[in-house]
């Protein structure tokens, strides 16, 4: 019984990033503030980039793909747009992971800038060119800027969570 409880708690900590991702896509909480639009940011991007970079076994690509589909359905976008953008971002993170010998939050942050730029460009062009959906690129750029600025802060929190997961795993 004690062993079961211990295993359950350990597994739960490992599932937190996945739960955060699905909670963000499923619920109405998504840090897009209508009255403070200049403070809106995309936490989903940070979650995907951070966890694919640090520990891809915690956030599987299949789940990222599924989260994208759920997000498209809820927001009302053509199904597949968010999946492509999330997977492109995951691709950047995976690429950096294979190249990096000694990981550091600052280096990840620098790489996060072009990753977000490319990801949002893919998102913008798919919607604008293939589906003729108007996108406010200024709002999108502002959102990206704030997301980039907040990456190190949220990264520190995730570092903390990552340490807990590792410690729990080794117990």
């Amino acid at each position, binding site marked *: 019984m004690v062993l079961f409880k211990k295993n359950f708690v350990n597994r739960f900590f490992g599932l937190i990033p996945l739960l955060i991702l699905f909670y963000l896509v499923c619920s109405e909480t998504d840090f897009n503030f209508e009255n403070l639009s200049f403070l809106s940011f995309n936490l989903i991007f940070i979650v995907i980039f951070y966890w694919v970079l640090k520990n891809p076994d915690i956030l599987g690509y299949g789940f990222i793909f599924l989260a994208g589909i*759920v997000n498209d359905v809820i927001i009302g976008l053509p199904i597949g747009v968010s999946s492509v953008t999330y*997977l492109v971002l995951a691709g950047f993170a995976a690429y950096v992971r294979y190249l990096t010998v000694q990981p550091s939050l600052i280096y990840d942050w620098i790489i996060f800038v072009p990753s977000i730029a490319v990801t949002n460009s893919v998102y913008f062009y798919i919607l604008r060119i293939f589906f003729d959906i108007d996108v406010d690129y200024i709002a999108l750029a502002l959102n990206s800027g704030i997301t980039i600025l907040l990456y190190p802060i949220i990264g520190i929190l995730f570092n903390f969570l990552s340490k807990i997961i590792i410690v729990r795993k080794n117990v």
Partner: protein
Amino acid sequence: MVTSRDDFSIAIRSAFLKKGVKQKFSLLALIVASIILLSLEAINSKSLNFVRSAIKDVVYRTSFIASMPDNSIVSVFTEIQNYFEVYEQYEIVKSKLQRLENQQNQINYLKVENDKLKRVIDDTDIYNHESITTKVLVDKKSPFLKSVIINKGFNSGLKKGMPVLDGPYFIGRITEVNYLSSRALLTNDLNSKIPVIIEPMGYQAIMSGTGDKSALLEFLPKNHQLEVGSLVYTSGTDGVFFPGIPIGRVELIEKKFHIKFFSDLSQLYLVNVITSKPIESEQ
């Protein structure tokens, strides 16, 4: 140099083709799957639409349940806030009631007069229509896409294009219908374009969503003399909506004419979908 190029290609290959220890799919396979899904969006077949509709119904209900804790926290805060503002609200309501009572007498007179005039011109009564009251299931905020998901679908007779009202005010139209749920595109969405009429001048224009709290007035007549505070209604010239549904008032923002909506589009809870054209008034 050769080595660095090799490193680059190995990293790319590893990132996109290699599966992790616990990964069941490679990134490339999932990107291809997403692109296939995207191209399926262009195909309009009955079976595909049925699958899409079923998936959407399930996701919307899941999202409604997932949003419950979040929404209940917000409603508790709102209730506490309302509690502290009771006296202030009471004073406002009292003065409003007095004003409304005066207006009611005026309205009664105008209504009688209007009915008489309608009989003369053989017109329809815009407030005489069938509607369905629905609940907003999900109102996911997006920086530019503004829509809500409601809890009635084609099982309740909803169809694409039907106007959606918040009380008596126009707020959008149905753009997607599933079996148990539908999506209403709000008037402030960037992709929303609605023909409107501005009274008392009678100008025709297009109301274009900005993704913000208001909408922009486009294609106004040349040399117009639009006044701030004028009332905006649907014009019905598109043949989709019937004319005369109130939308908002004209306001000037950065030298451009905008519409300030009568309804607060971020606070929608119960909305009415008009399911029939206005019923002709009795002669």
